[in-house]
């Protein structure tokens, strides 16, 4: 076994018997996650798939230390999520673009670097490189409101990559975009993932999207949220748009769909 394969098999995030319970606005107890155990390997592209209420976003937020576990353990690179978060090891992209409209595109990408006290010169160069990677160099001095939704989401991806995070967390990042923009961003994301070799945790309710992007797909079921299956995606890499029309792709989509408890959704 080569060293590269060794590092690929190394466990980056280990989740053991995780329970997350919280109270909603009307005070009812919501069992968002129950007994979830999962090992995520370093450099792996993993998707969390399931209908709304299955706890996929909660699982992502718990890894990022935005939500406290009620019971069970999460370790990220052998440490607690909080420690990893404070070392800025996470990059995050939310469902809607979170850009500060008083900052230019360039300054928005520089934000995480400012928080880690990078020098002005380093910040500028890094943000410039990131904007080039997402193809928005010409818009560095624009303001977010001057950009389309797809472009705004690309700025979010550039910002997430800017700190060179060990783990990239994406919470339905493309769900609000049109099909053409979405396909383009799928290819951009896979290219950037290949170049940087980050661990990506990708939340989506779109099965095709999950199959196209992932190494493995975790299928979650609702009420209470629990992990009901893990599907290995056996498609070759690099992935191309043509693969979406192959029988292998369709049978994987079918397999994921049939993994939901109680059959198809």
């Amino acid at each position: 076994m080569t060293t590269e394969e060794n590092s690929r098999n190394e466990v980056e995030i280990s989740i053991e018997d995780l329970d997350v319970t919280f109270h909603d606005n009307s005070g009812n107890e919501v069992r968002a996650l129950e007994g979830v155990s999962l090992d995520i390997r370093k450099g792996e592209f993993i998707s969390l798939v399931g209908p709304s209420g299955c706890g996929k976003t909660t699982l992502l937020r718990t890894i990022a230390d935005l939500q406290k576990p009620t019971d069970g353990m999460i370790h990220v690179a052998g440490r607690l999520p909080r420690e990893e978060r404070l070392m800025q090891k996470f990059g995050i992209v939310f469902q809607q673009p979170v850009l500060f409209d008083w900052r230019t595109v360039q300054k928005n990408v520089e934000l995480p670097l400012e928080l880690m006290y990078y020098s002005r010169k380093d910040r500028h160069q890094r943000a410039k490189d990131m904007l080039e990677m997402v193809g928005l160099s010409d818009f560095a001095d624009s303001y977010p409101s001057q950009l389309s939704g797809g472009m705004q989401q690309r700025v979010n991806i550039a910002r997430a990559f800017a700190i060179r995070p060990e783990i990239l967390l994406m919470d339905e990042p493309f769900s609000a975009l049109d099909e053409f923009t979405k396909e383009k961003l799928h290819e951009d994301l896979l290219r950037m993932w290949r170049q940087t070799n980050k661990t990506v945790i990708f939340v989506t309710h779109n099965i095709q999207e999950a199959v196209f992007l992932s190494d493995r797909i975790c299928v979650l079921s609702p009420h209470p949220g629990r992990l009901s299956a893990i599907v290995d995606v056996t498609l070759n890499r690099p992935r191309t748009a043509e693969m979406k029309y192959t029988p292998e792709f369709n049978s994987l989509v079918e397999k994921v769909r049939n993994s939901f408890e109680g059959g198809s959704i």
Partner: protein
Amino acid sequence: MTTVLYPVLFGILILVLWQTKTLHAILHTDTFTLPLPGRINAIIADNFPTILGNTIVTVRVAILGLLIGSAAGYLIAVLVVIFPTLGQGALAVTSVFTAIPIVALAPVMNNWTKDVSGVVSVRSAVSKIIVVALVCMANMSINAYRGLTEVKPFSEDLMKVLAAKPVKMFTKLRIPNSVPYIFTALKVGVPSSIITTIVSEYFAEYLMGIGRQIKENILMAQYAAAWAYIVTACVIGIALYALLMVVQALVMRNRKAR
């Protein structure tokens, strides 16, 4: 362009109705009680140095009161965000000040500040500034609190994931987000600081100031002179509001429509 044009045209229409005494016919009044614009204008021209002297006294109080009150209001809002449980009460208490009539507040402050300085103009100014500041404070604290807390969804989560320290949460997110809300508060604060100053001057110890002059002239039935000061007060209000608009345009020049 029409936002400037229509009010100006409306103003001219009123002036024409006023000068041609049509306004007097509508209001069943005479040119003694409501002097003609030409006459008011002549009084302002003849007494320009005196009016200017009074204007400076009033504007100084209004601006200092507005700035001190707004700064205090903003600080309260910041404290409410930091200590939410204590804070909600503080916000409520602050807004109680707006419910106290200025006519009640002014004499209280006159008494309270009587030992501040041996100079009448100074202690009178301090008293009036406190009244103006109290009135402006609540307005700013409520708007600033909204500006500091009503951030885009997930902004706080983003900052947390990026390991932002609590201070950075303010300097990089909350404070920049509050800037448009500061201007919202000031747009109300500018006119109300002038009105508050003028009303406080009715009760002030010091005899200079536009409010005082309006009161004295009305008491002596010199309506034309009183109107000269009323017009001056209007001009100050418009000038300060225009100044605020210019500052806002400069500060927010980079924020495009949302």
